[in-house]
């Protein structure tokens, strides 16, 4: 049994979970290759123009998997991964969108993940999938528990300062060189599926590291602390990732060692358009830069902005900082 998992969207949060679950149930898990220009082009050709870059990239990965002779393609409908919060409307429509737009699609495993009220339906869906693969209820539940554990282990790795993409590689048994410590510290925020995908973000994390900066990501912050900070907002943010980002911004803003904050947004992303604005307003007394990318963005333009941002941070540090306003 061959099950394909596209290298996009919630791959960067739940790949260890899905991989373990399906492997334990005797399936062979196939992932598409990391995002490259061809992925973006193939996805852009399939999706509607107005879809955001991560969705287009996801289409590109699905396209690649279509030619891999799969039995099933795993494309869950992610509604909500915790009580009273959502991800994004597009995630809620992904299986329907793929069916309508991707020719030659393998059969989908489109379980609905909706934990906004209870996890009963998810459990039912999981058992249905497990039975499809020929397993009993107890074995399925055991596999799921194991999968949850593996996912926690991967998040644990990420908390040591790796990006989720790197953590997944380490979890998979690869050895990675730890990044060199730089003279600047930059808080980097954004949705994980755009930030950690090196092909999609045009290598943003490694570029910032190359410029001599230590990168602080959400995963390296204390999760409970973030929730506490996020709860100080006048209205609870109802997007899971958005809420964490806001908690992260408030936390990073307070921390002395962080010199500046960069927010990676995707053009056309609904949550980014609101959270990016709020993040900017909640960053007081520290430089903040909003980087917006889409499939037309050029690497050179981004590099120039990053260099300028780092130069400005270094100059602020050299000269007595108090002379400079937060914007440079």
């Amino acid at each position, binding site marked *: 049994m061959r099950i394909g998992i596209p290298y996009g969207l919630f791959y960067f949060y739940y790949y260890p979970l899905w991989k373990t679950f399906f492997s334990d149930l005797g399936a062979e898990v196939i992932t598409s290759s990391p995002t490259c220009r061809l992925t973006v082009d193939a996805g852009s050709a399939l*999706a*509607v123009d*107005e*879809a955001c870059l991560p969705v287009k990239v996801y289409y590109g990965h699905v396209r690649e998997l279509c030619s891999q002779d799969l039995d099933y393609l795993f494309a869950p*409908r992610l*509604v909500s991964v915790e009580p*009273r*919060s*959502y*991800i*994004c*409307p*597009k995630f*809620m*429509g992904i*299986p*329907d*969108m793929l*069916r*309508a*737009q991707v020719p030659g699609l393998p059969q989908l495993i489109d379980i*609905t993940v909706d934990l906004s009220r209870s996890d009963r339906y998810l459990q039912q869906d999981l058992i249905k999938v497990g039975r499809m693969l020929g397993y009993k209820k107890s074995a399925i539940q055991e596999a799921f528990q194991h999968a949850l554990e593996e996912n926690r282990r991967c998040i644990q790795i990420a908390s040591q300062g790796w990006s989720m993409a790197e953590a997944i590689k380490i979890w998979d048994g690869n050895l990675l060189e730890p990044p060199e410590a730089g003279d600047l510290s930059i808080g980097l925020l954004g949705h994980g599926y755009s930030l950690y995908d090196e092909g999609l973000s045009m290598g943003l994390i490694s570029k910032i590291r190359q410029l001599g900066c230590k990168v602080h990501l959400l995963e390296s912050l204390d999760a409970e602390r973030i929730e506490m900070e996020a709860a100080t*907002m*006048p*209205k*609870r*943010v*109802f*997007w899971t990732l958005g809420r964490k980002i806001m908690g992260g911004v408030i936390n990073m803003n307070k921390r002395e060692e962080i010199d500046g904050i960069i927010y990676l*947004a995707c*053009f*056309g*992303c*609904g*949550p*980014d*358009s*609101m959270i*990016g*604005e*709020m993040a900017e*307003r909640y960053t007081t007394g520290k430089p903040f830069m909003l980087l*917006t990318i889409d499939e037309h963005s050029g690497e050179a333009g981004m590099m120039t902005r990053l260099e300028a941002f780092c130069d400005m941070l270094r100059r602020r540090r050299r000269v007595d900082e108090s002379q400079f306003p937060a914007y440079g």
Partner: protein
Amino acid sequence: MKVSFPHMGNMFIPINALLKGIHVDVVVPPPVTARTLELGVKYSPECACLPLKINVGNFIEAMEMGADTIVMAGGWGPCRFGYYAQVEREILRDLGYCFDMVVLEAPDSKLSELLKQVKGIGENATLKEAYQAIKFAWFKLGEVEMLEKRLEYLLPRVIDQNQIEQIYEAGVRGIDKAEDRSSVRMVRLDTIKHMDSLARHQRSILKIGLIGEIYTILEPSTNCHVARCLGRIGAEVSRSIYISDWVNDHLVGGLIKPSNHRQILRSSRPYLNYHVGGHGRETVGNAVEFARSGYDGIIQIGPLTCMPEIVAQSVLGRVSETEAIPCMTIYFDEHSAPAGVYTRLEAFIDMLQRKKSLANMASG
């Protein structure tokens, strides 16, 4: 206390009646103009969707007229509308305006907070007055919508289209001014009679279903007056949503009048099998309903980057193929130019007319 609220088509008429009924000073923001949009665009986040920008423009113009309290709706996602009020408040505070913002939303934790806020607006009214104000507002809304629907029917059929629009607008103003039920009814009857009396021509009429995001459908200034434009080039437009439907289905759960909301959701299967926030699923369901009731074409409209509409648009292609009905999607933002939009509408209508006449020739 001077209360203001954002515009959404003719919504200001019932809100005005409601607030006056509970003895509140109301400042109706000036109609949405290029200046409103300019103000909104200047101060709003660049990538926010169009309704937020127009809200901000409305609020600034209302505060220039002396408003000090803003009533706004909220929500709990996943559509970003739920966070509008928060961002708008930050923007306006930053600009130095001094105001209270009352956000009406299903409470996250404390029901008492919502009640306190609602009570805060209508502190001088008794419960009975509040009840009557709500009933009168609902009545006015129904009467205004009768005019809207009559105009949608007659506009492609009458010869003097400027005149019928003038009559309609005078009628809407009349209803807004009228202070009791009988005079509202009188204005409505007179207006419809006057509209009906205009000379008509005998051309074949195309039927177009207008679907999409609620605000863009209801507020003509955000959609370059798509409905009027279609009417003028010979298409009868049916909208997928009227304010009364929305109030009925979403605010009071279908209590006031029978609703076809469930039927619409059923029709969205198998194309879209889950709610996707906003009116994404209704858009798909309505497209199917329009196709099955013999409409000639469907136009989907929404603000650029609207998430639920993008999901709907993604599956509309399949709806169009399976249900055999031409669909077109137009997104609007602050850069939309009427001439470009009209050209696309004309081309779409030409295509439909040609398709229809070819079909008629083949069959007869």
